[in-house]
């Protein structure tokens, strides 16, 4: 039994991603959507926390939101895997429940 967490806010101005990471369990997934995709930026003030957590939690980013925001692939944390809206749907069905960190 594991959870897909979605985070839709930039981690630089808002505590949602930090709180989500602090409440994740091994085997959970975290999907970054909307302004949440800024959490996939490498070399940022919060990227170490994401990389550390990714040891036992799977991280995903919604590609449409990444492209909209012009984030270059080379600047993204490689442990955060890209998915489309169809991949989003698959994740929702693969995990046992979804928790939105609004």
């Amino acid at each position, binding site marked *: 039994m594991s959870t897909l967490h*979605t985070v*839709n*806010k930039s981690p630089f101005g808002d505590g949602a991603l930090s709180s989500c990471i602090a409440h994740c369990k091994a085997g959970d997934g975290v999907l970054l*959507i*909307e*302004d949440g995709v800024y959490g996939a930026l490498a070399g940022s003030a919060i990227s170490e926390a994401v990389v550390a957590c990714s040891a036992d939690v799977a991280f995903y980013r*919604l590609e*449409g939101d990444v492209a909209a925001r012009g984030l270059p692939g080379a600047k993204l944390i490689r442990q955060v895997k890209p998915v*489309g*809206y*169809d991949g*989003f*749907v*698959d994740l*929702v*069905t693969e995990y046992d*429940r*979804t928790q*939105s960190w*609004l």
Partner: protein
Amino acid sequence: MKLGIVVSEGPYTHQAADTAYHFAKAALDKGHEVPRVFFYHDGVNVATRLSVPPQDERHIQKNWTALAAANDIDMVVCIAAAQRRGILDENEAKRQGKDASNLAEGFRISGLGQLIEMGIECDRMVMFGD
């Protein structure tokens, strides 16, 4: 699978109604069911038929109305949230003594019980908000 969707923020101001729309479309494309979408908090504002976005922007309400019609989605607008924010269907407008209504086609106004029921009957529930 049956996927329930909650939209908690208003159109244009937050991306939630857009992301929920793309998610619902992708789910239907994959053969899942989306029996109901529940609009709560400012999400009820998606259901106004008076919105006139610029020509070069998407029309969020019309997108939802079309998707629901094509896929038999029950789009429920929370009555308590809608009343506060001025979203009324014709009956409600009459009952409240208002001279106009603004609910768009494809949406219906009902109670929060419909949200709980969706949680009970769907295999997964996904919330889009702020």
